Structure formats: structure tokens, C-alpha cells
């Protein structure tokens, strides 16, 4: 009989970084397994994090699989488990099981330009694939990031974004005007129209709030992107992570196992149940 998939491995939080404060705070956690660090995953996959006594929460892994020393998760404080995570200190122990889900089909994207389009905490799953692509620059074409948040205070990975500008084109935006902001003002989908990424030999990857994704896809289509060139991730409430507990399905698909990554060609044929 195989391993018991429901038993998490214990991991230590080795670093906590406050990304965003305020009413919808985001923190980035780095964790290391206590026993063995053997946890191989693909970009876009998720892990089920445990705060013992509170429960579990499915979180996308924001670090690249090329880094073996730690796993990174950027987490928006939302409910019972994520609130507990936000109260934790470096050195505290959590549980991790997984990885779960299909991940991004990066093999298929080789040789193509990658256009990453994120909003808010949606940068977390992108962060993993973006850094993997950067590390393997020779395998992909030109990369570009279009990212926005409500206000400049809500932008995650601020320092890292500054670093990133040295390596690829980064277009930032905030939803509403604010003093000192010199880049685009307006919602992310509008910034996409402004920047007009070319669909030629490109793949667009978009993650963020459902309403943003909806209009980003609309606008990408307007720019000439085919359904097969657009990828996104879907979220639903999850418990088991392995397609058995029955709650995250969109039609025939279990998002935890068959998702969370879908091309628009696939997703548009599934019922609107997310």
C-alpha cells in the first residue's frame, strides 16, 4: 500500500516577510521540512498547509522548484487557517502535504514569449513559473509581467519587483490614482490593452481575482490571442486535494487534481461553477 496522503510532513517556518499590511494583509512564508526535504513539485502546483488545531488550507507554491532549500507561500489573510498562519512566528511548525494539481504546462511553452498578467495575491502562482522561466531563459522567448493591485500598498514582492525590472519588462498599475504613482492607473485588464502584448508566438498566463481574469481574457482575445494561448488558474474550496472529497468540482473536473491550471480553451467549455 502506498503512503498515507492525508498525513502532512512537519515543516518549520524559517522566514516571514510582511508584504502588505492593512485590512487585507499578505505575508510570505518560507518553510523547511524537519525530516527530509524531498518534495518535488511543478510550477503552479499547490500544497495543503496545516495549522494543527485550526485545519488545512490549499495554497499555491510561489517559489520555483529550482530552489530546493525551502518552499515559499504568499498568503492573504482570509479565514481561520490563514489568520492563524499570520499570527505565527519564525521557528513555528506547520504541516505540509502535497504537491497537488496539474501545474503549468511549461514543456509546451518552450520557445515562446511568456506574458504574465497578475492582480493582487494572484502574483503568487505566477511568481514560481516566472522565476523558473527566468532561470531557464535560453528555453523561452521574451518574458513580460503586467501586474496591478488596488493601491501601491497592496503590491506584493515590492523589492523583488524592483530587482526583476533588471531582467524583464515589468508594467505595474494601481486601480485608483494616488500621489507619487508614475505608472499606469486603472484596472489590470485596461493596462493589458495599453501595453498591447503581441500574440505572436506568445503564451499569456493570468492569475488574480475572477473578475480581473474575466476581463483580461476578453482583452487578450481582442488583441488576437487564441483560446489555446491563454492560461489561468481557478480556485474553489478544497479539503482533500486528491479529487475524492467532492467539493471543488467544476463539472467533471476536480480543480484540486485536474486543475488549478487551465487554458481558456479548456475552461470556457466547463460550467461557470467557480
Amino acid at each position, binding site marked *: 500500500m502506498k503512503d498515507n496522503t492525508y*498525513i502532512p510532513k512537519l515543516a518549520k517556518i524559517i522566514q516571514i516577510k510582511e508584504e502588505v499590511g492593512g485590512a487585507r494583509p499578505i505575508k510570505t512564508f518560507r518553510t523547511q521540512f524537519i525530516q527530509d526535504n524531498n518534495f518535488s513539485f511543478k510550477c503552479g502546483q499547490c500544497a495543503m498547509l496545516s495549522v*494543527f*488545531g485550526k485545519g488545512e488550507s490549499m495554497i499555491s507554491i510561489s517559489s520555483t522548484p529550482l530552489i530546493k532549500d525551502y518552499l515559499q507561500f504568499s498568503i492573504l489573510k482570509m479565514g481561520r487557517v490563514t489568520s492563524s498562519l499570520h499570527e505565527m512566528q519564525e521557528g513555528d511548525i506547520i504541516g505540509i502535504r502535497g504537491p497537488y494539481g496539474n501545474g503549468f504546462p511549461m514543456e509546451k511553452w518552450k520557445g515562446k514569449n511568456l506574458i504574465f498578467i497578475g492582480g493582487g495575491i494572484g502574483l503568487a502562482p505566477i511568481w514560481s513559473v516566472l522565476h523558473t522561466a527566468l532561470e531557464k531563459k535560453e528555453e523561452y522567448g521574451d518574458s513580460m509581467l503586467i501586474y496591478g493591485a488596488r493601491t501601491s500598498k497592496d503590491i506584493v514582492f515590492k523589492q523583488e519587483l524592483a530587482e526583476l525590472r533588471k531582467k524583464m519588462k515589468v508594467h505595474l498599475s494601481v486601480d485608483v490614482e494616488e500621489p507619487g504613482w508614475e505608472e499606469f492607473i486603472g484596472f489590470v485588464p485596461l493596462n493589458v490593452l495599453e501595453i498591447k502584448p503581441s500574440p505572436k508566438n506568445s503564451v499569456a498566463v493570468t492569475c488574480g481575482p475572477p473578475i480581473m481574469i474575466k476581463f483580461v481574457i476578453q482583452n487578450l482575445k481582442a488583441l488576437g490571442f487564441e483560446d489555446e494561448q491563454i492560461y489561468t488558474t481557478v480556485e474553489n474550496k478544497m479539503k482533500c486535494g486528491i479529487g475524492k472529497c467532492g467539493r471543488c468540482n467544476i463539472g467533471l473536473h476536480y480543480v484540486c487534481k485536474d486543475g488549478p491550471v487551465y487554458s481558456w480553451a479548456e475552461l470556457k467549455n466547463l*460550467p461557470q*461553477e467557480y
Partner: protein
Amino acid sequence: MEKVLDKKSFPQWVKKLSSYTVYAPVQEDEVWNYEVITNPEQVNLDFPNTVLSPKKIIFPQREVYLEFSASNEDGLEVKEVLPEEEPSVIFGVRPCDARALTLTDKVFGGDFEDIYYWKRRNQVALVGLACHTPPSPNCFCLSVDGSPFSKEGLDVLMSDLGSKYFVEAFSKKGEQLINPAKTLFKPPTEKDKKELDKNRTEAKKRISRQIQNIKKIPPKLKGMFDSSLWDEESMSCLRCGICTYLCPTCHCFDINDEIFSSSPLSGKRIRTWDNCQFPDFTMHSSGHNPRQGKASRLRQRIMHKFQYFVERYKNYQCTGCGRCISRCPVGIDIIEVLDKVSSYEG
């Protein structure tokens, strides 16, 4: 292996199975359910159908995954909890309920084997009881590829022949049940076999309910996600969990931490049945709920059983036991709903 067993010898057979935990239908007040039997004389196979199917033994409503507690070293100790290894046998399993287990097998198998399910599943032998007369007025097994004497999923099938049982064993597990009591069983006569055939033909005729055009339903459902039928059919739904908790094929569950002490921390992680008819089943932490209304939840129940499951596993996720019909507090009838799906235009 084909045998006959005198009805009077049945308790002696059960007695021979002392190394097994024996489950059988037990009546309490007006309700029949599978319980552990301590006295073989207690086993009564003259029962309509149980309220809960044998699913409750293999996939119990509550299963402990692990125990956690604060410790000095790492600050935390986590201990895996697994079901005990004990061979068991369930008597009086209805063929529809045994077939249902072959469906949950598919769900709990596959890429990620569910160790809790299989630990229990592998050590239980299922002794079926053919349905000479339908145990419920709402039986419809014939419509969903089943039959009142289907052997699918069973190790042994017993068929009533008046003063005796015709006993067939289909698996090693089944033969192992018969071997310790070999002397009680006799080879069947030609007359027994004839009677069995006759009973079986008659049994089929006694099932009065059926789904029209079942083969057409999965493709039809594919185009009915946005149909107004779901609103109409769910008008009277109360959002209770009877239809799915009583269903022998429903497998949805929840996982929660239950704590006994918060400081120092100690508690358990527990799986419990969950239910797609409850509004909180799919509700996100943000408050967003992809299945907000009861129409979407009735649709999910029907679509899951008669479309999604069919596409994924090539079977209907329904074995026609009729429990959801008989026990629905407001008479929502899955056969009627499916018949409306068949005839739906628009």
C-alpha cells in the same frame, strides 16, 4: 462455488465465523441498520432495506486521520491513526449496495489510494442477499445496470429458496467464509437450480419503477447546465442532507481539526461525511459561493451521478436502491427528475 444451506443451519454458519466481526441488519424501533452481532441467533435476514447502506462500515461517517499534541522537542507531535486490522463480514448486503461499493472503490482508488478506505475494504467480506421481492417500493436497480441478484462487489450471494438458501461464492474471501462450515452446506440439486432461475425471473418482474431512456440522460444533461428545470425541481428542496447521506454511492467528505485542549494543544484531525446539498459545502472563505442556490445543488447531485461520474468512470453513480426517494422529506423523486430531463425541451 454453488451450495445450498438449510435456513435452520444459518445461525450455525454464523457461529463458525467467530474469528470475524460480524455485521448484520438489526431492527431498532422501526429502523433497520447494520450493527455488530454478538449472538448468531440475532441475525435476521427478513428485512426490507437498511436506512444506511454498508457504506457506513467501510467509509464510516467519522474517521480519525491523525492525533496532534504539543511536545517539548519540536513543539509538536503528529501521530497517524489507522483503522484496526480485523477481518469482518457483513451479512444481508443488498446487491445494489454491494454494487455501490464497486463505485466508491473507483473513487477511493486511482492515483491516490485512500488508505483508510482500503484498510477497511480489504478486510471485509460481503455476503449478499438477493432481492426476491423489492425491499423498497422505490427500487429501480434494473434501470441503472443492476439487478436484484447482481453479484458485483459481493463475495457470497444468498438467495432465498423457501426453507433454504442457495449460496454462491465468487471470490477467495467468499470461499473462506464457507470453508469453516463446510459440513453445513450441500450441493444444490437440479430442482434447486430451477427454482433459483424461476425466482430470479420473477424478481425482475416485481420491480415496478424504472427510469425512461436512461442511456440518453448523460448526453442530454451535458447541455442542461443552465436549464430552468433545476429551479422548478428544487422548489420544494429543504437543503437537508438525507438524500446524499443515505446514498450508498455518495462519497463526499470534510476534514476538520477537533481540539480537546488549546493549551497545551491536543486534538485530532477527523474526516466526516459531507454533503453537496449543504450550502456551506462549496462556500469559499471569502463568502463567495459558486453554488449559491438550492437549484445549483440539486443540479450537482443529478449531474454528478448521471453525467460527471459516467464520463469519468463509465458507470452511473447510482445503483437504484431508492433510499433518496423513500426518505426525502418532501418527496423529491430522482426517477421523476430524470424522466423530466429525458423529456425536457428548451
